[in-house]
């Protein structure tokens, strides 16, 4: 039986278990959890673990007969086996300690991961959350990619040309800011809307006006790489959760078996995934 999170191994009678974290959140483990995984790998596996491409940890070469025991150990520690097959995969999220994210997305990641952890869907579906336009978690090539964006207000008259926002080490990473004649301007084409400059500026010349989330859908990596399309831009975390719920409902009703969101868009168009069309 092919169960979610148990991957076939190369050795007969052995399997690889893919472990994802419910607490603290999908991309983060506590030191006790790492200890548990190390103990399992030593006792039941080959003593090696693989860190997967979607922030899960795979414990290799576990005897199929020992899988039940391993599950008990995992579940006691906020961990569980999952993120394979036609299920919602592990929600990718960026580090909540990163300097450049607009704000930490760990709460949203935990919420989504808990909501959809065991949800069966027509095809593989992955959600990636990025805290800024750099999109380290590959939001633009995920089935559902969320990128947090900051709206920056420029008060050019308040600028004292302290150069903090343009020079190393805190200066703009994409060189979107130019200083000239006691004023500051931001190049909209280059700006990735991370909002970091608003933390750096000490004179309220660059101010954080608001935040929003851009939702990309239909991207994929792997065998048929595709770039996602911008679907919507929403204001709050709750809106993101609601939009994803609506999207998954439509996707489940229109998609054929094994069809990913990108293929549905190719076959039926973007509108087929909008809730209005489904009453």
């Amino acid at each position, binding site marked *: 039986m092919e169960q979610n999170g148990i991957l076939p191994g190369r050795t007969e009678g052995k399997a690889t278990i893919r472990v994802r974290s419910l607490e603290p959140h999908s991309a983060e483990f506590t030191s006790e959890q790492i*200890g548990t995984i190390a103990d399992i790998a030593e006792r039941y596996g080959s003593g090696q673990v693989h860190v997967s491409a979607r922030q899960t940890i795979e414990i290799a070469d576990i005897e199929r007969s020992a899988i039940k025991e391993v599950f008990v150990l995992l579940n006691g520690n906020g961990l569980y086996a999952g993120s394979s097959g036609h299920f919602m995969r592990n929600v990718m999220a960026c580090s909540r300690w990163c300097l450049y994210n607009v704000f930490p997305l760990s709460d949203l990641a935990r919420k989504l991961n808990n909501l959809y952890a065991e949800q069966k869907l027509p095809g593989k579906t992955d959600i990636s959350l990025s805290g800024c336009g750099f999109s380290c978690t590959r939001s633009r090539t995920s089935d559902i990619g969320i990128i947090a964006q900051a709206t920056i207000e420029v008060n050019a008259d308040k600028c004292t040309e302290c150069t903090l926002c343009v020079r190393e080490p805190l200066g703009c990473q994409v060189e979107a800011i130019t200083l000239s004649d006691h004023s500051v301007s931001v190049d909209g084409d280059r700006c990735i809307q991370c909002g970091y400059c608003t933390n750096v500026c000490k004179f309220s010349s660059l101010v954080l006006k608001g935040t929003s989330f851009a939702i990309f859908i239909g991207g994929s990596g792997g065998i048929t790489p595709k770039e996602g399309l911008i679907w919507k831009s929403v204001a709050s975390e709750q809106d993101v959760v609601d939009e994803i719920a609506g999207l998954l409902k439509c996707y489940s009703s229109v998609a054929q078996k094994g069809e990913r969101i990108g293929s549905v868009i190719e076959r039926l168009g973007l509108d087929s995934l909008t809730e209005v069309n489904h009453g």
Partner: protein
Amino acid sequence: MDEKASGFSLEMPKVGVIRGVKAKDVELVGGKVVNLRICARPYSNIYSVTQLRAIKTVSEQYGSGKVHLSPRHNFEIPEIRNKRIDDTLKLLYVAGLFPGGAGTSVRNIFTCPDWCSQSVLPTQEIGKMISTNFGDRDMPNKFTISFAGCVNGCSRPHNADVGIIAVGKVKVAKGNCADQCNKCVEVCPRQAIEKNGGKVLLKEKNCNFCGKCVKACPQNILTFASTGFKVMIGGKEGASVAFGSVIADFVKDFELLEIIENVLQKYQEKAKFRPASQKKKERLTEVIERLGLESFLAD
């Protein structure tokens, strides 16, 4: 502790010590805590039990008891007190871990594990070769190498500066297939296989060399005629997306290192500063866009 007296060399570049602060309101310049991004050796993607325990100890003793997994097989230990960074690094070096995978260098090699049942060729040893040869080498800009054992490409080879995919050419044995299983037709993602009674037909034009049919066939009717690696360059993912273009197909494992070395050297030679920029040089995809693939590869 005196570095020399302790016997450990701390001369490795500290590119992995990323400036990190606990929250945005903590003092920004010269933050008191740092995030540490660590890479494993010899394999970039495999951590042994000892290495996991070292990470656990470090995060408990010097950090906040949390670790973050990066999207490229790195562990990130946040909130390490700046004063204890040397002690932390010593602990990690002993376990075969070191800070890296950040800044303008060859990032952690993205690769798949040997135990995956899908891979056409075993990847771990070649991944190790690539990561010991090229890992953390200084580059004009960020440089990513992704290495996938099959065309499923979990490690995103299409979106890497250098992406490598193991591929296998399928051959159909003479004679009829006695089995009624039809598995080869079912697993093929490209409808490249037709089964007519006992006759298996391979439409080579449709084949994408994933080898799924070979793995599914219980009768050894379908086997690999040859296996090798496809090399793509110039992909990227992040603030913008680009897909790599193929520069070599069905090359052997020992040829890979030379090809990658060649691309790295060409990139180092030909990368310029971005337009209107004094700080940042181009990514590989921008160089290729400016020069064209052919003149990039030419001398």
